């Protein structure tokens, strides 16, 4: 039988399968519109000139604003904000309070789609973050028998089927959502009926008809990114991400909290041209040698990745550190880019000098001043 005949053979599949797979989008064969090319290119040129004019005029404005804002320096006097330093507030949840299966199944092995060898799997690590159903896309591939590869925990011994799902806007090579199916009812049923010869079919039907109710984010920690742009792109940071406060560390040991970080601005400054900012080979060495001195730390959230209050940190000597993929990544962004992002935050966001106090959670600057007066300490000094 040749391939043409086999192709004809495939022509006999059920109508429902044919209509199900009918291409939905119109595929139009376009020939190049030479007729309009000249007009289009002229319009494009005009836009280019306008854009260049805009860029140059903005540069003038930026330069002007920078020179006008020379008052925003290390010595700037910021409003004070009292921060409670009670260590009990930093207590982590005990493992004994863990109630969900993902907190026990901290690792899950998914079959490596680039190999058909049964033994080759990619390890995904639980972020211990639950994710809402509306952030989850299609189910991926087949279900997974957890028993095969992951230690079973007594409490969840019957949660031995995992289903994996796409996370909206995120490659499944990077991260997936995992839901567990409680097979207890099925095992109870087959205990009563030992003679069931169609066990595999019944098990398959049970799995197909049951959906997980909770979903958890698992990340492939070995996923490779090589540039800052790739990191931003793969995590869909522009759409998915949000920023909390940014913390600026002065040379004099003060911490200034800045609020109101503009997501688009951070993307424009750091990520949009990030193809040229490459990953440092050995981030641990850089950290251990003290070559990364954190100057600015931006709190970053990517809910679809279970990423909450992670860091994008900048050093003045031109490095960007981040742990948004649950591991240390350091990119070489250069001193100029580092200065750009630091200046943006300092010049455009509202800053508060953090004053740490034991067991006092007041955030009112007036109260802080009262306390200073009572204690006789003058903390209104500016500068280093």
């Amino acid at each position, binding site marked *: 039988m040749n*391939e*043409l005949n086999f192709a004809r053979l495939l*022509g*006999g599949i*059920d*109508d429902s*399968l044919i209509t199900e797979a009918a*291409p939905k989008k119109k*595929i139009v064969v376009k020939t190049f519109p030479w007729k309009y090319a000249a007009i289009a290119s002229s319009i494009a040129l005009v836009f280019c000139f306008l854009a260049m004019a805009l860029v140059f005029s903005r540069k003038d404005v930026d330069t002007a604003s920078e020179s006008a804002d020379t008052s925003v320096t290390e010595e700037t006097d910021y409003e004070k904000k009292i921060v409670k330093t009670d260590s009990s507030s930093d207590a982590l949840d005990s493992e004994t309070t863990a109630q969900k299966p993902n907190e026990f199944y901290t690792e899950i092995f998914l079959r490596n789609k680039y190999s058909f060898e049964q033994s080759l799997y990619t390890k995904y690590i639980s972020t211990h973050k639950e994710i809402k159903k509306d952030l989850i896309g299609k189910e991926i591939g*087949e279900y997974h028998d957890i028993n095969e590869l992951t230690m079973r925990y007594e409490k969840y011994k019957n949660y031995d089927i995992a289903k994996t799902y796409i996370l909206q806007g995120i490659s499944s090579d990077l991260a997936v959502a995992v839901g567990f199916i409680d097979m207890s009812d099925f095992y109870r049923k087959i205990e009563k009926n030992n003679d069931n010869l169609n066990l595999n079919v019944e098990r398959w039907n049970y799995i197909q008809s049951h959906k997980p109710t909770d979903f958890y984010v698992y990340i492939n920690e070995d996923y490779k990114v090589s540039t800052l742009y790739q990191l931003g792109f793969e995590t869909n940071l522009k759409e998915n991400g949000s920023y909390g406060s940014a913390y600026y560390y002065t040379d004099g040991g003060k911490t200034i909290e800045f609020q109101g970080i503009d997501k688009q601005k951070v993307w424009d400054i750091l990520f949009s041209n990030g193809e040229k900012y490459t990953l440092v080979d050995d981030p641990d060495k850089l950290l251990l040698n003290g070559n990364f001195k954190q100057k600015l730390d931006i709190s970053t959230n990517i809910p679809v990745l279970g990423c909450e209050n992670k860091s994008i940190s900048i050093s003045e000597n031109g490095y960007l550190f981040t742990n948004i993929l649950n591991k240390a990544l350091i990119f070489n962004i250069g001193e100029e880019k580092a200065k750009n992002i630091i200046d943006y935050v300092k010049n455009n966001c509202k800053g508060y000098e953090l004053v740490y106090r034991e067991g006092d959670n007041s955030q009112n600057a007036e109260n802080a001043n009262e306390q200073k007066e009572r204690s006789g300490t003058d903390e209104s000094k500016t500068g280093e």
Partner: protein
Amino acid sequence: MDDEKIIELFFKRSQEAINETREKYDTYCRVISTNILSDKQDSEECLNDAYLKLWNSVPPEKPKSLKAYLGCIVRNLSLDRLEKNRAQKRGGGQTEAVFEELAGFIGTSNIQISETLAIREAINSFLKELDKESRIIFVQRYWYFCSIKEIAVQMEITESKVKMRLSRTKEKLRKHLQKEGFDI
């Protein structure tokens, strides 16, 4: 106009039947034909032949799905034309790439034409058990002859994922057919 009304027009032998069918399914048919043939003129001829064949076969045929029925006609006519073109050494659209993939799949199998009905049933049952995404990708590639890129766009996944899915599905199909007793 819905399919039932169009089929009614065929049964009444009204010319409107063809006009309505064209209006509803012309683009769909063109996609199938150009994916197989790539030559516009060949595709146009196949489409015209397909509408004629449809007119001549309905009635007595009363297809449950007009779309699938017409799609099959177009596909078969396009494959016939392709066979003729190949004999004359004229190229096809996506077909050469698809045939290369299928050649690797069927190898030197000894399936006889008499077994085709049984194999079709086996393929149908296999496809119904597949997950929806894999099934759609498989049918789009080997029934509709869509390019890998088109499938990736349709399914909103990368081209490499499409290729991997196809490869896995073919392997599973091979095992399924072997289990059913066919020498693949």
